């Protein structure tokens, strides 16, 4: 059980790092593929946390829909690899230093807070209790989210409409 946590967390962080800076390729498709691997390893962590429903949803929605959307857009735009190596070393160094400081603050805070002292690990996220909660206590946010999805759909159609089709409808 514990060795599985270390394997999955190492793989998650490794693939996440390869999404951001891949030493071998600057191609966005490679980043998207490593994002898929990150998400799959993270759903392994979800299974270790007994969130089975969310692990399935993570793979279905992220690896299945979101990444496919990313790949579609990359193919649609026909982006070449970043040929121009105007690599601004100073900016990258400053950004990395700032983020490293933030990471240090976060990790030391979490280590010192001893958050897990009184914790118990016995909550299993099956589909049934989640669904019951979703349709009783959280029914209003659920409906609002459905409205949000409708708005997103209309927004996408509006944004991706080309001027030619506009003239046709007018």
């Amino acid at each position, binding site marked *: 059980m514990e060795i599985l946590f270390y394997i999955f967390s190492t793989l998650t962080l490794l693939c996440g790092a390869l999404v*951001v800076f891949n030493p071998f390729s*600057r191609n*966005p498709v490679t980043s998207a593929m490593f994002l898929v691997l990150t998400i799959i390893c993270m759903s392994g962590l979800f299974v270790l946390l007994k969130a089975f429903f969310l692990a399935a949803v993570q793979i279905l929605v992220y690896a299945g829909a979101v990444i496919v959307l990313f790949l579609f857009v990359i193919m649609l735009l026909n982006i070449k690899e970043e040929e121009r190596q105007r690599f601004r070393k100073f900016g*990258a160094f400053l950004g990395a230093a700032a983020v490293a400081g933030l990471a240090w603050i976060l990790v030391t805070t979490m280590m010192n807070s001893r958050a897990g002292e009184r914790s118990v690990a016995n909550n299993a996220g099956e589909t049934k209790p989640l669904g019951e909660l979703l349709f009783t206590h959280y029914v209003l946010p659920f409906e609002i989210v459905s409205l949000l999805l409708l708005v997103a759909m209309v927004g996408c159609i509006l944004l*991706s409409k080309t001027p030619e089709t506009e003239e046709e409808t007018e």
Partner: protein
Amino acid sequence: MTSVGLEHYIVVSAVLFCLGLLGVVIRRNLIVMYMSLELMLNAATLALVAFSHFQPPTPNGSPFDGQIMVFFIITVAAAEVAVGLALIVALYRKRQTIDVADLTSMKL
């Protein structure tokens, strides 16, 4: 090797969040920056699931509140990706580039 507790998951989540932030800061390709944003959202998701799993029993409130929140985060993230990528496509049609170094003016 101590037993894996809440802190371990939170530290993994924090490091993953910082990796995503680093991607947003240092990469110049809009699509890769967007993927890094997804990474940050996933880190928040992992933290919420860990809190939900290790939550002590409380009189009011279900132990699954965190997981319900993650469910909503995933839904909102899917909507956000759709709208954001539509914006990127519209921007590319106007400017023929998605390098943020070339996208410096707000006029079309």
